[in-house]
């Protein structure tokens, strides 16, 4: 129990204390130096702005969250299917996978405007952009996970004359789940970036849109208010994935903990 609370403090408490200290320092310094608000507003002003605009911020945050989650879901679904196919078929490995790996190095944000042409200005292009940016992390990690199975494990299955489908489903897939979660932890943040990029390109809603409008009005305080909400959403999404991993992969979490203590 004492171990548990010490660990919890190490994981959550320490970063939190650091963050609070930074905010206090920021507040103190900007009061001391009288930094103008349109350059860098004080934290206390940002908090007031969040409270004042809470309805509007919530409305826009929900829109962005929607695009992010749908894009992320699409990326996971597509990514897992692609990865399984790539691992199963040598042809796809040499063509599709090689292509995906090289495409991953180009800045995908640059093709976001294309999606507006293809899919219009509604929610769909944002979902598509979010999915496109996030899917690479899923495919690459999942392919690695599916491949890194101990060959003896495959031989064990072969010794019982397991079908290819059962080898995938009962051995490769569960073995790859930790890698999939590693990919999802990256992909969830990428999906949020994708959603915001989509809103930057063309939108009349969402936190990205809110930031653009505030910028147009030189309202730095509101920009920071939106950024604060955006960061909170990003953190919450990331920890939701971490929480899901704890729930679904207890063996992985326990093993990681055991090797960290060793």
């Amino acid at each position: 129990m004492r171990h548990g609370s010490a660990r919890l403090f190490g994981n959550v408490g320490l970063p939190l204390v650091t963050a609070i200290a930074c905010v206090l320092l920021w507040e103190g310094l900007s009061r001391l130096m009288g930094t103008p608000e349109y350059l860098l507003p004080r934290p206390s002003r940002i908090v007031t702005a969040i409270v004042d605009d809470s309805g509007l911020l919530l409305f826009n945050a929900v829109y962005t969250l929607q695009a992010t989650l749908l894009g992320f879901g699409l990326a996971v679904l597509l990514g897992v299917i692609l990865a399984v196919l790539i691992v199963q078929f040598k042809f796809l490995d040499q063509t599709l996978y090689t292509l995906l790996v090289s495409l991953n190095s180009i800045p995908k944000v640059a093709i976001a405007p294309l999606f507006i042409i293809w899919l219009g200005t509604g929610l769909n292009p944002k979902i598509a952009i979010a999915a496109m940016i996030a899917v690479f992390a899923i495919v690459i990690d999942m392919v690695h996970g599916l491949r890194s199975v101990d060959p003896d494990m495959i031989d064990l299955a072969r010794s019982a004359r397991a079908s290819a489908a059962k080898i995938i489903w009962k051995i490769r897939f569960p073995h790859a789940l930790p890698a999939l979660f590693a990919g999802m932890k990256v992909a969830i943040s990428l999906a949020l970036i994708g959603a915001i990029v989509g809103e930057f390109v063309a939108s009349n809603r969402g936190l990205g849109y809110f930031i653009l409008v505030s910028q147009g009005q030189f309202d730095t305080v509101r920009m920071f208010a939106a950024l604060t909400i955006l960061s909170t959403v990003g953190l919450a999404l990331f920890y939701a994935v971490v929480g899901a991993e704890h729930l679904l992969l207890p063996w992985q979490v326990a093993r990681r903990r055991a090797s960290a203590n060793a």
Partner: protein
Amino acid sequence: MTAAVVEMRPERRLSEKPTSDHLVIDGVCKTYRSQRGSLEALRDISLRVRAGAFVSIVGPSGCGKTTLLRCVAGLDHPTAGEISLKGSAVSGPPDNMGMVFQRDVLLDWRTVLDNVLLLTEFRGLPRRDWIDRARRLLAVFGLASFEDRYPWELSGGMRQRVSICRAILDEPELLLMDEPFAALDAFTRDELNLELQTLSQRTQSTTLFITHNIGEAIFLADQVVVMDRRPGRIATVLDVDIPKPRALSVREGRAFAEIGRQVRQTFEDLGILRASP
């Protein structure tokens, strides 16, 4: 699977009269080839194993014991020669075979019980038919209170016991074991030797059992195969004519000591063991 067993039956009856050899290894050679050159692991291995026999294989590390076992299992293919089971050539893993690997290969995401039931799932057998037997086996191997634990919560010896339970769950006709007890302490090893003897008396599985422990090899076996260094060859095959079931005390008997002496003598002649002063 039931269909296959029914089909096999008439053939089995025929073959029982003249030669009841379950496993025939005939002139098997295995050379591993890679970019860095080729490595001759097995040279001209021939061996006949009768149905229900327990054969121990001893030999120095790297002499090709695992390679031989993998060829028999149909997981690897000989470069030359042929292996046949019940008269038909092995081209892939046969039906109704159990295998214990040198390293226990347990699935981290499955409980002990679910690991034991894994192979029945691969064979498409209904879980509920096997769950009681799996529990009983785990109890026999001293793991009754661990069936809901995960592999990483077990010691090395316990993990290996789980992998043995998994291999023998459906009483395979052919049982291949690659140093299953290497990670165990002497007491546990004795205990499991007795359990394995009881089980194999009952199931009558044809068994190939690899070990580095000469005492264990003799205690369990009807025949002990002694292998020479790489390229792996069979140096000699010794019969163990001690009636079964055997008690641990046979190890102090004259017959047992004589076979042990012959095994050691063979290793000395091959220059693998240093001659005793």
